């Protein structure tokens, strides 16, 4: 009986988590219930995966990891008290610590005090049902560490929650800020509204270096190579031909005393394909890996079966306290995914955690100080009850996100409440209406395409929409175009509402062949309720035959252009909400949240270039050299020879006779 129960337990663990969980002492009865419910909802998808070998293998890893992990499990006192509600689990962890990590405990035992914990880990998941029927889920894992990684005298060598690989990179290359994102798919702002954190398709990397760095270009080159190792991505394709130094578009997000663009490097690889090999190293940076907490949901077989997937790492210094005398390091790992109604959801407007990720939540990451799931219920609360959320929790909150007043249902995973009697949280979202709603157009969005035909010239058209009914606002448009599309800046035209709209600021750096790309940044004022069309002509270069990628006729990617703007928020438009607030707060119509910063990425472009015939370098070399030789030969002929009267050549017999006569000393015939 006990063996059977243990077997069931392992089976459950395998199906639901796929790997180790710290929490294991749960009542058997609950276990079986959860298992049976999950089985029903899997619709027999995963049952075949469980085999005996998996069992044994899994048990081994379980034991192994339990043996090695506790050193990492050092949690802050306050988080520990939040995390474990059952004393059973608590004592189990304590036990593990005492038994298996004596070395780390020794020093602490001497001082007699628990260590002062200076790092913290938070995790959260936001689920937003989109009006199109798709679902947007955004994970965020935030690690904060009160330490100075850049101090050269006192090298930090003990890493706890903060990943060591990234910490070492920061101190080695003296990085002030690092932002990297891997994205597969394109975020459709028009259908989905603005994302929490936008990212262009492919890989985007931007780094602010410390002002102490002497040779920024070299550090950048080495950094990209190191990062390509860490994230298993082709970041080593970043070189001077796709690196730019934007003057205004990418300012430091954290605490910064350096704003000189010489220390900024920005590059996008629009062609990079993001897949499992990039997800696994990204997950490994998490303190709990993907073994506990929200990260158990990150299974690549589901994540990459979606219409948009974006994962990012943001490292920046933040203030430690209000005085901001000291800085802390903040690592934010974000992952956004949009599941498609038709591809993943079988065209049914019903979503659940299990349907999206094929996992449910049973516990937070034990190292996390907060672990929450937010579900956007704005549509529900507007009165017409579009979406039903189950299980319903009482905790709700309101926030102004991206200029929009949103309402969220909050599931605090640290408390037992959300798990319910099943000890498992599987959030269900159900639309009441089956046809899609029309979304209000986002206030700012943009699209871009290539105009013209043929392979000689072309035009890049960027359409920028300001859908605000009465407010004009400026945007900063940044274009980075590879050198082989030669931009003609004098053809730049910005037209709003049929009239010329002269940019108030233009920063342009023309490209140098095979050295660096074009960089165009400009500040454009968008009139209210308008479409602004930015057009610039380019010429397509013919490259050397070795400079083409293996599939030259697929075309060349041009990275997304970036729009940065302070967008007036839609909250200010809403006249009704003021009734709920004290009158003295809104004597002036301008509110704190009246505008918000937003970045919009346009589509990357795919441009064809004329190609030479790759099969005939030898022929070309031979033929051209022949023509040159014809020129040389005919001139050489005329230069070295003179006109002479043609003499009929003597016959063979006569020549032989002459040879004999010469031998005889007789004059020839």
């Amino acid at each position, binding site marked *: 009986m006990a063996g059977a129960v243990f077997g069931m337990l392992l089976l459950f663990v395998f199906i639901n988590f796929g790997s180790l969980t710290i929490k294991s002492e749960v009542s058997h009865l609950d276990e079986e219930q959860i298992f049976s419910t999950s089985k029903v909802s899997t619709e027999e998808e995963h049952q075949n995966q469980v085999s005996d070998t998996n069992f044994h293998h899994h048990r081994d890893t379980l034991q192994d990891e339990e043996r090695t992990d506790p050193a990492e499990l050092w949690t802050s006192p306050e988080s520990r008290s939040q995390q474990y509600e059952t004393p059973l689990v608590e004592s189990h962890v304590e036990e593990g610590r005492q038994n298996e990590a004596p070395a780390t405990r020794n020093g602490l035992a001497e001082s007699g005090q628990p260590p002062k914990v200076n790092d913290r880990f938070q995790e959260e998941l936001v689920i937003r049902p989109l009006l199109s029927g798709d679902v947007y889920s955004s994970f965020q894992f935030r690690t904060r560490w009160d330490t100075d990684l850049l101090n050269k005298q006192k090298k930090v060598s003990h890493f706890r929650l903060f990943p060591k690989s990234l910490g070492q990179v920061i101190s080695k290359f003296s990085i002030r800020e690092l932002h990297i994102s891997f994205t597969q798919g394109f975020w459709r702002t028009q259908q989905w509204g603005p994302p929490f954190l936008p990212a262009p398709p492919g890989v985007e990397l931007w780094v602010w270096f410390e002002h102490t760095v002497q040779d920024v270009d070299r550090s950048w080159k080495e950094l990209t190579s190191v990062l390509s190792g860490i994230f298993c991505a082709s970041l080593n394709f970043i070189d001077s031909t796709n690196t730019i130094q934007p003057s205004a578009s990418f300012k430091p997000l954290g605490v910064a005393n350096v704003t000189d663009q010489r220390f900024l490097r920005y590059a996008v690889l629009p062609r990079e394909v993001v897949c499992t090999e990039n997800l696994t190293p990204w997950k490994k940076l998490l303190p709990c890996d993907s073994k506990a907490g929200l990260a158990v949901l990150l299974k690549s077989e589901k994540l990459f079966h979606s219409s948009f997937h974006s994962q990012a790492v943001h490292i920046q210094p933040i203030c430690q306290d209000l005085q901001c005398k000291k800085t802390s390091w903040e690592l934010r790992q974000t992952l956004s995914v949009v599941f498609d109604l038709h591809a993943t959801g079988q065209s049914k407007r019903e979503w659940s955690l299990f349907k999206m990720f094929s996992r449910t939540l049973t516990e937070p990451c034990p190292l996390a100080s907060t672990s929450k799931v937010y579900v956007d219920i704005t549509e529900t609360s507007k009165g017409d009850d579009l979406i039903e959320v189950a299980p319903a929790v009482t905790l709700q909150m309101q926030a102004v996100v991206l200029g929009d007043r949103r309402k969220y249902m909050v599931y605090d995973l640290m408390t037992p409440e959300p798990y319910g009697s099943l000890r498992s949280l599987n959030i269900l979202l159900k639309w009441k209406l089956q046809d899609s709603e029309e979304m209000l157009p986002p206030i700012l969005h943009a699209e871009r395409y290539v105009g013209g*035909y*043929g*392979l*000689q*010239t072309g035009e890049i058209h960027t359409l920028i929409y300001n859908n605000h009914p009465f407010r004009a606002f400026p945007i900063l448009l940044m274009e980075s175009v590879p*050198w082989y599309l*030669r*931009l*003609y*800046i*004098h053809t730049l035209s910005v037209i709003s509402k049929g009239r010329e709209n002269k940019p108030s600021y*233009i920063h*342009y*750096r*023309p*490209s*140098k*062949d*095979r050295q660096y790309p*074009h960089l165009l940044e400009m500040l454009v004022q968008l009139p209210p309720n308008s479409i602004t069309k930015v057009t610039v002509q380019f*010429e397509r*270069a*013919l*490259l*050397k*035959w*070795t400079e083409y990628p293996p599939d030259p006729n697929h075309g060349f990617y041009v990275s997304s252009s970036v729009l940065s703007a302070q967008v007036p928020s839609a909250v200010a438009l809403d006249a009704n909400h003021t009734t709920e607030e004290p009158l003295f707060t809104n004597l002036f119509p301008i509110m704190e949240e009246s505008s918000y910063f937003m970045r919009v990425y346009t589509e990357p472009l795919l441009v064809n270039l*004329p*190609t*030479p*015939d790759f099969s*005939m*370098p030898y022929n*070309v*070399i031979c*033929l*051209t050299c022949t*023509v*040159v030789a*014809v*020129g*040389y030969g*005919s*001139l*050489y*002929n*005329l*230069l*070295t*020879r*003179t*006109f*002479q*009267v*043609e003499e009929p050549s003597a016959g063979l017999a006569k020549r032989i006779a002459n040879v004999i006569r010469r031998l005889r000393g007789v004059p020839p015939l």
Partner: protein
Amino acid sequence: MPAIFHYISQHARGERLPPAEMAASLVLVLLIAVTVRAVLFRSSLAEIIAERVEVVSPLNGWKRVVEGLALLDLGVSPYSGDVFHETPLMIYLFHFVIDYSEIVFMIADAITAVALYLAVQDYNKIVYRKQKYTLEAGRYPLDVAELLRTPKEMMYIPIKVAVFYLLNPFTVLSCVAKSTCGLNNAVTALFILCTIKGSALLSAIFLALATYQSLYPFTLFAPALLYQLQRLYIPISVHSPRFWIFTSQYGSMYLGSLVVITCLSFFLLSSWDFVTSVYGFILSVPDLTPNIGLFWYFFAEMFEHFRPFFICVFQINVVFYTIPLSVKLKEHPIFLMFMQIAVISIFKSYPTVGDISLYMAFLPLWHHLYRFLRNIFLVSIVLIACSVLFPVLWHLWIYAGSANSNFYYAITLAFNVGQILLVSDYFYAYLRREHHLIHGLYLKKKDGTEETLILK
């Protein structure tokens, strides 16, 4: 001897147009040329022509001039990018006349034509005088009378040269596309005029300007020097001090003006960036935009480790002919100049049809070589056919997608072979005529049959 005199005097008696009438016909030609250009400028064709790769190259495209000016307006050095490759003086010129660019290009063409007209007129006088002296000295064989040139035939040559330049479709296209090649041609034509008129200083200045503009014309130093030595009756001999004095004079005038112009450009933009951006660009051929020359496809298909070697070979090939040609043609510096201009425009790194039109303008001057040309018919057909096929194959490759780069490349090869044959044919004819002037036209063997001449 009397037979020759008779022949000459017979033709000399032919009616001769007064200078006023010649000038009137020149003005007429100019008017026609300007009208044609003005009409084309106003038509929708102008935009299409300005995009043609045969007419504009990365070095002289008008779009790039405008781009350079736009970059200056933005406060960016035009040489920081790889779009603008004009010289600083050019950008300075167009900074002022950008609004009148069409007129500037028409005036440039007119200047070229008038300069060539005057130069050729002067040159013809000298040729005729020289022929007269030789004839009077009795140094011509008896049977070359029909090879000698007559005033009647020479009278129309200057106007023909002007017509050949102004109404050549290549020149018209080049002018309508506002290729700065037209301005370079004007500088070169002024250089030729000054050389023939015997003004050493002006000749050196214009030669320096031409060199500054497009680098290759420095090889024209040799014919200019030879011509002026001949004009001053200075023997070309290493033992003659006068030879060395004049050579160093002319050379220092040339180098001096080159230094002055270069320094002037430096002070205009206070940077030396233009040197790499203009001359480095001409020499290292980084831009492989298709054109009518031999470089683009060759270096697009070149193996990377052979590139420097072949770039050296191809660039040396352009200038190398100067030495043997100068030795061979030291008595005929104007023909040498024609050969040099032709060789440059065939083998330079970014040739356009505007370059071709300059040496083609000289063809009427060698009208008397016509009877010795071996394959002029074939060559003309090849050149015309290729000129028609350029846009056709370009369209098939770039727009229709039904052909590939090899088609266009094949046409550039054929076109260049045609040009090479044309030039070498004229060279052959020139040498042959000279040979006949010394040895007689109808050489007979002892047995009375006709001799055949061969190159040995």
